[in-house]
């Protein structure tokens, strides 16, 4: 019986985590997330942290920053990206991005543009030579 309760508990926390993964661009807060898992806020934060190693709120920030990096690398503007990952203003987005990544979204995007262009123009820069040779890519 205890095992079933544990699995049921896990399913609810996992569901909440997946809710964050799917709704990071919405205006969600902790109440939305704990409601989703049918927990009190305190109990929910404690369980979530024990499983994922960070609070739901910090996890939401991490998901938003990871998604922002993908969007910026694809060429979306800072304003677009900010909106697409659930921030109210590009200023607060830029501040959070810099705090987490140590660089501004614009700087990150410039670096990614450079990398993408290099991948297109000289892909062998990114492939260890042993793999390139066995594929015949160096000829």
């Amino acid at each position, binding site marked *: 019986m205890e095992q079933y309760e*544990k*699995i049921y508990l*896990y*399913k609810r*926390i*996992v569901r909440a*985590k*997946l809710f964050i993964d799917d709704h990071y661009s919405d205006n969600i807060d902790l109440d939305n997330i704990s409601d989703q898992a049918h927990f009190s806020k305190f109990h929910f934060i404690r369980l979530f942290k*024990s*499983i*994922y*190693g960070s609070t739901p709120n910090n996890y939401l920030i991490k998901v938003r920053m*990871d998604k922002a990096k993908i969007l910026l690398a694809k060429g979306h503007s800072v304003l677009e990206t900010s909106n697409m990952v659930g921030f109210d203003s590009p200023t607060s987005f830029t501040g959070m991005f810099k705090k987490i990544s140590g660089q501004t979204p614009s700087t990150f995007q410039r670096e990614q543009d450079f990398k993408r262009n290099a*991948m*297109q123009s000289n*892909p062998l820069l*990114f*492939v*260890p030579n042993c*793999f390139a040779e*066995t*594929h*015949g*890519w160096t000829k």
Partner: protein
Amino acid sequence: MITKITHTCIYVLNQDSAYDFYVNKLGFKVHTDAPMGEGARWLTVTPPQQPELEITLFLVAEGGMFDKETVQTMTTLIKKGTFGAAVFTCKDLLATYEELKSKEVVFKKLPTKEFYGFEALFIDDSGNWFSLAQTNP
């Protein structure tokens, strides 16, 4: 003295499908996705918390080191589940299992208590199998 692994290789049967599996289901990050001409593609991903280890999703296709017979043999063996490609670890196996199961990842062994912690086995979209472990602290 050898210090680290920087690149390792998993043979896959379709790189688009492998991209979806490793990135969208397992949550790995794309490190390099470079066109190599004539439909070839250099695709590497990294585990979420190990950005320095590039896993090459290496397409089994004719050309370079693979002739037609080798491709057929490799394809058969991969589909058959011959190759165990890696051991992944996670902080909480039961939660990771529940999440991957909800994303339709196929498990060959349910989470089981072992002397070192817990272990489950799953397969990727090609047929390579992996251990997913949570070790005792």
